[in-house]
């Protein structure tokens, strides 16, 4: 047999966490036993995790998907002719036609899962490098202007306009500037940065080079949390490829721009996702936050002007430059332009990545894409935007994903993570956890965060055990206000958000009835 059949088994660490490696081995063994010539491609994940491990076969009609596959299914798949895309119990038809995927508008994740993440040929064939090539023909001002015009805002959670940040660094006078990618994706319910680093690492490299050219920085750092060992090793391999191909180094694609790029690993500190704590950590110190000002754009890494951007903010830039800022800004609503890579997780039937323009409702994401709860019980709430985000009750799922709409509802879009809870969730415990998490992860620099979170756990414990509930709820509200007003960074300043959201939407779970003290207390 001369024809080589391409079979795809994801290498994404989430897919591997449910047995993708075992399946790759089993497929190779079966193919060898049957003397069939296959090319086993370890691609990124398509982001439909309830179907992982998802195996695909390239047929004349397109890629056909099977999943979730276990190693025990592999022999049967061969027997039923899956290499010709034939039917099987696990058959999902053409991958691109799966409604979950077909209803998305993938921009940043356009290449996700298509090919071997470290294949330069596949990267370029699928549109890679066109952003960098465009940038090389533009002035620094024009690059920054394009990013500003696109309307993209920081995808790490704060939502600050990326173009304005770049402009500040561009205009800063310095012999040395840096670009730092914040890949300390510590929020529970978020995993898009990890997927991108593992599944399309060359895109992040391209984006950082563009940023370096735009602002005049010649050195970049990617700060990755230590919980992501696969992302770290993939990035290191990708950077080596970048140097081999002259994307990185003294002369970027033959131009007179130089750019060097390094990966740094964290060591288990959530606070290092706060940009100034990350800079401290990159400098080899305790991850204690810095008071702002000065902004990192003026005095950042080693006191030099520094772009600090989240993985997804950076990764959106190459397509903005390749296709023009209008391509991006035409999507979205109000002041939330472009797409967001929403990450669905928790108690959900179909958890995964949904990249769509801003303006989509929570209901669409949770019930249409996500398919409701995994447990088949009623959905009670969703926490949006990470551990510092609000719990939103199912009665408010008509909320549109938009920075300002969420802020007006005392909530935040954050990094686009959505964690779903069914009706067995104990919201009082969730409020307590928010304070507990802050007490564990606080860097300790400011008192409202360091001590307030410990006191918060104690007060909520008293409320949950029914002690003097009314007075303690008042105390809790007061404590939350102190943390909001007095904390130096978002850790202490936002920890009250989930707590207050429980008080607002689920007062009965903190001992109150209709917002009032329960009569029996």
């Amino acid at each position, binding site marked *: 047999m001369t024809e080589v059949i391409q079979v795809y088994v994801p290498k994404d*660490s*989430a897919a*591997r*966490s*449910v*047995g993708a490696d*075992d399946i790759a081995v089993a497929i190779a063994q079966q193919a060898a036993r049957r003397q069939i010539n296959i090319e086993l491609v370890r691609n990124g994940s398509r982001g439909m*995790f309830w179907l*992982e491990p998802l195996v695909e076969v390239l047929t004349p009609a397109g890629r056909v998907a099977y999943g979730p596959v276990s*190693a025990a299914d592999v022999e049967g798949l061969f027997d039923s002719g899956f290499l010709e895309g034939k039917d099987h119990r696990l058959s999902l038809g053409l991958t691109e036609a799966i409604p979950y995927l077909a209803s998305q508008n993938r921009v940043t994740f356009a290449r996700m899962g298509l090919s071997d993440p470290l294949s330069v040929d596949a990267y370029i064939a699928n549109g890679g490098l066109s952003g960098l090539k465009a940038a090389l023909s533009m002035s620094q001002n024009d690059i920054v202007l394009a990013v500003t015009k696109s309307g993209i805002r920081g995808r790490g959670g704060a939502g600050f306009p990326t173009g304005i940040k770049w402009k500040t660094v561009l205009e800063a006078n310095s012999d040395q500037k840096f670009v730092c990618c914040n890949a300390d*994706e*510590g*929020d*529970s*319910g*978020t*995993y898009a*940065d*990890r997927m991108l680093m593992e599944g399309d690492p060359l895109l992040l490299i391209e984006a950082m080079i563009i940023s370096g050219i735009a602002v005049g920085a010649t050195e970049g750092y990617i700060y990755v949390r*230590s*919980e992501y*060992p*696969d992302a770290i090793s993939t990035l290191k391999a990708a950077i080596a490829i970048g140097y081999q191909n002259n994307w990185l180094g003294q002369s970027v694609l033959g131009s007179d721009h130089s750019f060097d790029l390094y990966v*740094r*690993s*964290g*060591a*288990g*500190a*959530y606070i290092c996702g706060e940009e100034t704590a990350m800079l401290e*950590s*990159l*400098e*080899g*110190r*305790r*991850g*204690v936050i810095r008071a702002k000002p000065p902004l990192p754009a003026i005095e950042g890494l*080693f006191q030099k002007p520094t772009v600090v951007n989240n993985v997804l903010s950076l990764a959106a830039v190459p397509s903005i430059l390749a296709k023009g800022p209008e391509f991006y800004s035409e999507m979205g609503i109000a002041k939330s332009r472009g797409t967001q890579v929403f*990450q*669905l*997780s*928790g*108690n959900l039937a179909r*958890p*995964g*990545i949904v990249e769509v323009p801003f303006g989509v409702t929570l209901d669409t994401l949770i019930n249409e894409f996500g398919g409701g709860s*995994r*447990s088949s019980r009623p959905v009670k709430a969703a926490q949006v935007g990470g*551990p510092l985000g609000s719990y939103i009750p199912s009665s408010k799922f008509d909320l549109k994903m938009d920075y300002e709409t969420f802020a007006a509802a005392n909530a935040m879009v954050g990094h686009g*993570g959505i*964690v*779903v*809870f*069914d009706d067995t*969730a104990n919201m009082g415990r*969730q409020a307590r*956890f928010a304070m507990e*998490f802050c007490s*564990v992860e606080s860097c300790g620099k400011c008192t409202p965060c360091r001590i307030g979170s410990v006191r918060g756990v104690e007060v909520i414990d008293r409320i949950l055990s029914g002690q003097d509930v009314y007075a303690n709820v008042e105390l809790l509200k007061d404590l939350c206000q102190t943390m909001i007003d007095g904390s130096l960074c978002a850790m202490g300043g936002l920890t009250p958000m989930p707590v207050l959201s429980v008080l607002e939407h689920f007062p009965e779970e903190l001992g109150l009835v209709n917002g009032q003290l329960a009569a029996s207390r």
Partner: protein
Amino acid sequence: MNYLAEPKQFASWSTDAAREVVLRHKGERGPLLEILNDLQGTFGYIHEDAIAILAEELNLSQAEVYGVVTFYKDLRTEAPGGFLVKICRGESCQSVGADKLVESAQEVFETKLGSTNSERSVTLEEVFCLGNCALSPAIMVDEKLIGRMSTERIAELADEIRGVTL
């Protein structure tokens, strides 16, 4: 599926080997955390003598080095058990039973969160998010991520570890 990757092999502590690790990072900017991560990857933990070596090599005070070692949860000053098991207690895992998983892990591994069992085969730790939220509940064994965890499967993992360490 197999839960375990190849068990990690660590070198025995030696100051010469430690200085070699430090040398590997010469020329890097702000290298302390990189070196500490590398030392731990080499020896499994940060030996107390490393503090003085790093202070001398990097022209820092011992207090500064010690401060960094104690700030980061990953960095440990004593050797861990044969396998490092991290259980995610983040919200996504909570929504599908992380609390129960923590309880049964403490039972089957016969140790508490944050400690090593008496056979020193397992060090059990909590972690807040492994980035595997779509396949919650998640745990990590050394550097191997495992999704769709359950109390039954954590018992299987314990059996597999017993098989390796017996």
